[in-house]
């Protein structure tokens, strides 16, 4: 009996070790193919458009490694089964690595501390305190979390941190201490609804995932529909969705043949709904389908196929990487290739957001003369004005306002034969959304700069 027990123990131990080995060895091969059909992130073939771009343009002294005292920055990102935003701070770190290899910030390297959380408020608050008190960060760049802004906004305000993030929760856009590079679910949904309204649909059905913030998010499309005198139906679905068929039928029934169905879900959930609609034969039953930014991935376009050509219109918060041949976009792709080994999703909006946030931070840090303290760094962040990131429709400004929605103009892309192509260029989000109106009046011209 004893031998039996110990043998089982050994097998359990071996199983654990084998899993560990498997996990370590396959982490590199588990990254899926990237957005563009031609370039998987892990391959070493050249970028499709321009020739290889030197990454050294990210820093001020090409080839000179920074060796001074590090400038500590922090980021908090959700990382739990089913939802992981770690690509964003990982890409920011890749950018910082590039800068560190090319002169740093006046010779100082940037050290990014990334804390992950599993949507546990206690953990999120603890992570913030860890970053500030133990890691002694002087700035926060790259936060991407379902609820972090709600939990920590008071803390950041008390300490005088002006964070640069990719926002999701309401507080990321409604407090003085957070400015996002993206539009977040509410304004991105506004963009998708706005496009549908511009196509003169007779009814809008807005369906979103039942995660924190649904009321706040729904208020945007509701205001836009009211201003356009179009009826709107608000729905929510518990995620993960186990019965996409009933969701698709309900949406199509509610929208009617001249209506629009607008989705606000993460890519896997949106895909499940759209595929169910297709299998049921419903994709042509409404005038158009729309989706907020998370749907803007080539994964989705590939999985949906050609039946969806000219049927699905996705709001894009960031400049589409395909077909854009600007120095910033090429630099982004080059840094991703050279330094972005931990970025799982490759080219796409997640890594673009990380790049943009890091870009802004570096630009701000380089303007600092003197020591890098919480005061000096956050003052520099707040002072960023009319910065051309090369990734957004507008110039980006932080500024000293009670709320921040610096990215408030968007593209619309559409699925076409397995890729996302641009359907409409930069369009400002309608000021029918009261928050947008409030921001624009507070920020003045800075909000509308092209």
């Amino acid at each position, binding site marked *: 009996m004893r031998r039996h027990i110990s043998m089982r123990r050994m097998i359990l131990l071996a199983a654990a070790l084998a899993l560990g080995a498997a996990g370590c060895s396959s982490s590199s091969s588990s990254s899926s193919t990237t957005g563009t059909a031609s370039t998987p992130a892990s391959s070493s073939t050249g970028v499709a458009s321009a020739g290889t771009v030197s990454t050294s343009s990210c820093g001020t002294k090409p080839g000179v490694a920074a060796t001074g005292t590090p400038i500590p920055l922090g980021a908090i990102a959700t990382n739990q089964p089913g939802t992981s935003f770690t690509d964003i701070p990982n890409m920011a770190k890749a950018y910082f690595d590039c800068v560190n290899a090319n002169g740093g910030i006046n010779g100082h390297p940037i050290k990014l501390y990334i804390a992950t959380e599993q949507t546990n408020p206690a953990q999120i608050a603890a992570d913030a*305190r860890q970053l500030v008190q133990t890691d002694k960060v002087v700035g926060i760049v790259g936060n991407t979390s379902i609820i972090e802004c*709600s939990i920590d906004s008071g803390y950041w305000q008390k300490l005088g941190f002006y964070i640069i993030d990719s926002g999701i929760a309401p507080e990321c856009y409604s407090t003085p201490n957070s400015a996002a590079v993206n539009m977040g679910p509410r304004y991105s949904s506004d963009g998708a609804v706005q496009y549908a309204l511009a196509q003169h649909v007779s009814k809008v059905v807005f369906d979103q995932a039942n995660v924190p913030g649904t009321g706040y998010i729904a208020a945007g499309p509701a205001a836009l529909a009211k201003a356009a005198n179009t009826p709107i139906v608000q729905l929510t679905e518990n995620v993960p969705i186990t019965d996409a068929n009933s969701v698709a039928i309900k949406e199509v029934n509610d929208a009617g043949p001249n209506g629009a169905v607008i989705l606000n879900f993460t890519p896997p959930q949106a895909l499940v709904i759209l595929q169910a609609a297709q299998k049921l034969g419903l994709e042509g039953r409404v005038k158009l389908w729309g989706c907020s930014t998370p749907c803007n991935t080539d994964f989705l376009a590939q999985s949906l196929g050609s039946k969806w050509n000219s049927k699905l219109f996705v709001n894009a918060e960031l400049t589409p990487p395909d077909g854009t041949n600007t120095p910033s976009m090429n630099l982004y792709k080059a840094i991703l290739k050279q330094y972005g080994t931990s970025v799982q999703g490759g080219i796409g909006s997640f890594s673009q957001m990380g790049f943009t946030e890091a870009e802004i931070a570096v630009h701000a840090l380089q303007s600092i003369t003197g020591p890098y303290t919480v005061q000096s760094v956050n003052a520099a962040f707040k002072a960023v004005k009319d910065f051309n990131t090369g990734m957004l429709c507008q110039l980006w400004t932080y500024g000293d306002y009670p709320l921040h929605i610096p990215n408030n103009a968007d593209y619309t892309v559409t699925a076409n034969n397995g890729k996302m192509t641009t359907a409409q260029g930069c369009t400002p989000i309608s000021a029918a959304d009261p928050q947008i109106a409030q921001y624009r009046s507070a920020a003045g011209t800075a909000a509308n700069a092209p």
Partner: protein
Amino acid sequence: MSEGHGGAATLERARPAGVRRRLTRPQLVKWGVTTVLLLFVLLGLPQLMSLYYVDTMTQVAVYSMVAVGLGVLVGRVGLVSLGQVAVLAIGAWSAARLLFATTQPYPLILLEAGLITMVAGVAIGLPALRLRGLYLALITLMLAGGITVVLATVNFPNGGHGFLGYNGSLLHIPPIRRPSFAASDPAYYRFSVIIAILMFALVFAHIKTKPGRAWAAIRQSEPAALAAGINTTLYKLWAFALASFITGVAGGVLAGAIHYLYSIGFPTQDSITLLAVVLMGGVYSLWGAVVAALLYQFLPALLNNWGVSADWLIILFGIGVLQVLTTAPAGLADQVPRDLARLGRRLRRAAARGSRAEAP
């Protein structure tokens, strides 16, 4: 004393009423060590730990209460509940609603939250008690699933009006308040530890008196307990009530700890993970509940700090469950002292052999 006789199979022998048993030396040592440890945890730990770990240990205190409730159900009475996280959510919901709606002192609200949860637990427990074993476990899972869906729709109170107290369009959610005497993180940590100690004392009192003996009898053999005249339904309901009350109080402490409550924070699968850690910690001893809470909250925080994915922990818990069920039914809290004792015996034997060899 008839009920004491009934459950004679496992327990403390019946003693004539009025005779106090003096504490034996090992028991005195055990009490002494426990007291010193508790004092250290209360007073010493906050000084030594960073705020990150103070916040984590507050969570450990909260979940040790949930674990001890589940431990009572599983270990003492033999009822497996796969829905304790839903019960915790009810407790947190009640506390949050009261905290926003009234200005009562915090400890009173904890009591009220505990009582509300207790009533809910008994209301659910009563019809479910006709089921046994696997069926009972599965029905608790079903009930937890249902409660989770309801919570996802009605949400947690956030300062709004009406019975549900939820205002969906708020741009800025107000935080749930803390007691005025425990507003800072280290102070709230001490507050949660004290509440946890009180709850553990409540459980201890139950175990050492009539309910504990009745539970032991029921766990041994329910028909035999019935035949001996124990009102098994009453005592099983009592266990449900106790576990629900304690978990409800834990929910109240949780509300003040994290300030913001979301339905996605109480998913059904967490109840399954909770059972896993309680089994690993050990269902028969009170220390097992502390071990379970450490596994459930401290270990993830540690791994998070070291940059290790939380998935490894899920795998570890799965292996732990398998290990516990096949080789060590009493869990780590029982196994580690046993292993240490075995190690101690071996060392003593080796030392004795050595000295014997030297002696002429």
